[in-house]
């Protein structure tokens, strides 16, 4: 049996917090705590960010030139710094949105965040969904070829992955059909 590890990663992968924060900064400079609140509100349903995560992510983005400090507010409190996205940061968000995720199950956090951030920034969410659907179907094709040529064990393992990827695809399809409605709610 030689089914490669298309389905070996069955753990829930954390989505790219850096990209999500960059995406949120596209609408204007914000404080770290402000960013945390915006993130939690949109994407943090059961797993809000820790402040530590926010600041370590921001300092990495700062070091890589994707954000820049946009002034310090007068007043009390430890963190009154505001951060702004740079041109390089915008390019990085563009690239993230237009690159499909490697098709594996449990992508919902990342895919949902990409759709919302595309809508928030006035980009095409349909484009994001179509790119992803093509990547998913390409992987499903490969699994199908492997299944057709394989023994029963290969078939069962490939089928397991195929059914899960199909569930993702159904979600992509359903979301594509409701993009206009979601746009209204997200930008309200």
């Amino acid at each position, binding site marked *: 049996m030689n089914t490669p590890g298309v389905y070996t990663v069955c753990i829930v992968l954390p989505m790219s917090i850096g990209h999500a924060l960059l995406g949120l900064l596209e609408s204007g400079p914000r404080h770290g705590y402000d960013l945390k609140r915006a993130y939690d509100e949109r994407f943090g349903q059961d797993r809000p960010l820790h402040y530590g995560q926010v600041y370590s992510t921001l300092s990495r983005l700062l070091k890589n030139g994707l954000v820049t400090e946009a002034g310090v507010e007068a007043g009390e409190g430890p963190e009154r710094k505001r951060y702004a996205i740079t041109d390089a940061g915008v390019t990085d968000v563009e690239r993230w949105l237009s690159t499909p995720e490697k098709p594996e199950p449990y992508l919902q956090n990342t895919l949902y965040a990409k759709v919302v951030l595309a809508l928030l920034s006035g980009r095409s969410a349909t484009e994001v969904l*179509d790119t992803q*659907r*093509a990547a*998913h*179907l390409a992987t*499903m094709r490969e699994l*199908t070829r492997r299944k057709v040529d394989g023994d029963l064990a290969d078939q069962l393992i490939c089928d397991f992955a*195929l*059914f899960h990827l*199909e569930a993702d695809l159904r979600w992509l399809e359903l979301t594509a059909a409701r993009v206009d409605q979601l746009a209204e709610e997200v930008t309200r």
Partner: protein
Amino acid sequence: MSLLRAEGLTKSFGKTHALEGAGITIRAGEVVAVMGPSGSGKSTLLHCLAGILPPDSGTVHYGDRELTAMNDGERSELRRTEFGFVFQFGQLVPELTCLENVALPLRLSGMKRKDAERAARDWLGRLEVDGVADQRPGETSGGQGQRVAVARALVTGPKVIFADEPTGALDSLNGERVMHLLTTAARETGAAVVLVTHEPRVAAYSDREVVVRDGRSRDVEFAR
């Protein structure tokens, strides 16, 4: 080099705009899945491509011949000699046996009964349903019936098979078996397949997909 090419197709049914500028290109021997939400115009596109339904505007070319400029007689001749069809159900003649059903297209082209039935039996065998040759379609299971329908679509050696939800009435296992047999046979004979389906696992038997949304089609050629 394209085998079948549609450009700028529009088609309305009363106030319903089923196609609004749809296009698609099919190359010889490739299996193309046509996907998209219910009511988006997939079947209408397939019917226009196959010369079953005349579009309101736009063109369909088969090789260098313009299908949309042919008269009814020329179009049905083309369908009989170059195309094969598989639908969700209801395509077999209930009064004939499965063998006679598969032999029918050859008989209509003037082939002798004995020769037609020999070819038909061969195709039933390739689709692993020689066992139902002497039964009528009503006496077979859904999966067997669809394999007989695939045999009938392939028996004339068509250049294009049009399949509209061919597995829509089957369970996963039977549906996939039919898809495997259909695509294998098509690849062996060099026939192209235009496969309308909303099931991703069925579409995964294709070489590439075209997505139809609101009467417009979009080729997705994913670079790998």
